[in-house]
């Protein structure tokens, strides 16, 4: 069972969005929620966006998980955190605030990578006139994150069998014994990956073509306007406050 970040084949249903729209929504959410100024009301409204996107693409399960997590944390934040004193309160606050703070961005990022194929991503970036010097490393990177994590876990298991763990009295060795095999694996996989891409014409001198049909439709324009409004609102808040 391998997990993928950017999907390699298309499997989404429901209303489709252009990759550019998804990227715009992702960046808007990140800038508004994580980027510094989070006035309370402004914070809870954009948190609805990931839910909308999940519903549009009929990802019912993800929508339910996201809604329940967010609402539960919100309730705890209002009704429990202010009343628990001392260190337990502090721990509870961290446990509650982390998902509250990060879940909208994680949800929208998950939506983005689950519904966008690598080709669509590259096509979208090409339409934005972002040079391939940036898009190709980016696509490779997204392809590679799950691999790195997988190798990291597998090597961790192997090292546990040898008794190299934090409590085993060999903590100093962890760094070397875990990093070196992981790097070796990644370098090898990387070499295979680049050989595979070269056979598919990545190194060719001509402009690459793409069969993905992407384009801005009415739903894209609607959400782009929402993003624009959100960003303008945020900038006004920065100027005022």
């Amino acid at each position, binding site marked *: 069972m391998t997990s993928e970040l950017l999907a390699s084949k298309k499997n989404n249903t429901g209303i489709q969005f252009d990759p550019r729209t998804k990227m715009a929504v992702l*960046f808007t959410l990140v800038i508004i929620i994580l980027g510094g100024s989070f006035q*309370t009301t402004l914070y809870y409204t954009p948190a609805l966006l990931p839910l909308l996107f999940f519903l549009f693409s009929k990802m019912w399960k993800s929508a339910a998980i996201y809604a329940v997590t967010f609402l539960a944390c919100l309730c705890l934040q209002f009704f429990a955190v202010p009343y628990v004193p001392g260190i337990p309160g502090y721990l509870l*606050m961290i446990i509650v605030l982390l998902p509250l703070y*990060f879940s909208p961005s994680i949800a929208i990022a998950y939506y983005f990578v689950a519904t966008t194929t690598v080709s669509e991503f590259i096509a979208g970036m090409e339409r934005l006139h972002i040079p391939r*010097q940036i898009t190709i490393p980016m696509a490779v*990177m997204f392809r590679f*994150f799950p691999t790195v994590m997988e190798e990291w876990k597998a090597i961790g298991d192997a090292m546990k069998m040898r008794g190299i763990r934090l409590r085993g009295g060999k903590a100093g060795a962890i*760094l070397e014994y875990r990093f070196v095999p992981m790097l070796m694996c990644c370098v*090898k*996989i990387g070499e295979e990956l680049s050989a595979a891409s070269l056979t598919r014409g990545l190194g060719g001198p001509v402009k690459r073509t793409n069969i993905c049909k992407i384009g801005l439709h009415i739903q894209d324009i609607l959400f782009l306007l929402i993003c624009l409004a959100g960003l303008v609102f945020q900038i006004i808040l920065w100027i005022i406050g």
Partner: protein
Amino acid sequence: MSNRLQGKDFISIGIYTAIYFVVNFIVSLLGFIPIFIPLTAVLVPLIGGIPMMLYFTKIKKFGMLTITGLLIGVLMLLTGMGYWCIITCVVFALITEFILKGSGYKSAKMEILAHGVFSIWTIGAFIPIIFFRDSYYANLVELGRADYADALMSFMPDWILPILIVGAFVAGIVGGIIGRKIFKKHFERAEIM
């Protein structure tokens, strides 16, 4: 061999950036405990030195590290470290790029120095805390994190910025030396590169 970046180089950039970022991310998770926040500026270069030194030996053309810097900056923005990292990443990656180019991409000593310079990008995550202290503090309090905010502010006085720069640089050098040692011990012998 031409000096322009080829498909193979793009893939190397993607792979090493991914490895470096995963390392970086695991280390930064410590930052939720306030005392570790200033320490992340030191820990990231210290541990990130291992993949970076491997990457530096792969770099033979101008531009690869700048793209890495840009990508790391964007990823830092996406994971909530603020947009200042984009600026610091690109600036320090460019400086590093010139150091590497100046040494002809061959000198191990210059690579260690280059890693020290590159590591200074980590201060990007702290710029909003120091330069926009009041609004940052107000935001944290508004989110109900008053005690976290107090703790954070007491660990991050204004004079910490130069210390962080020096700390990141020194940690980058030490990380580079460790990375170089590991590289010699394992990778060169196994003829991976």
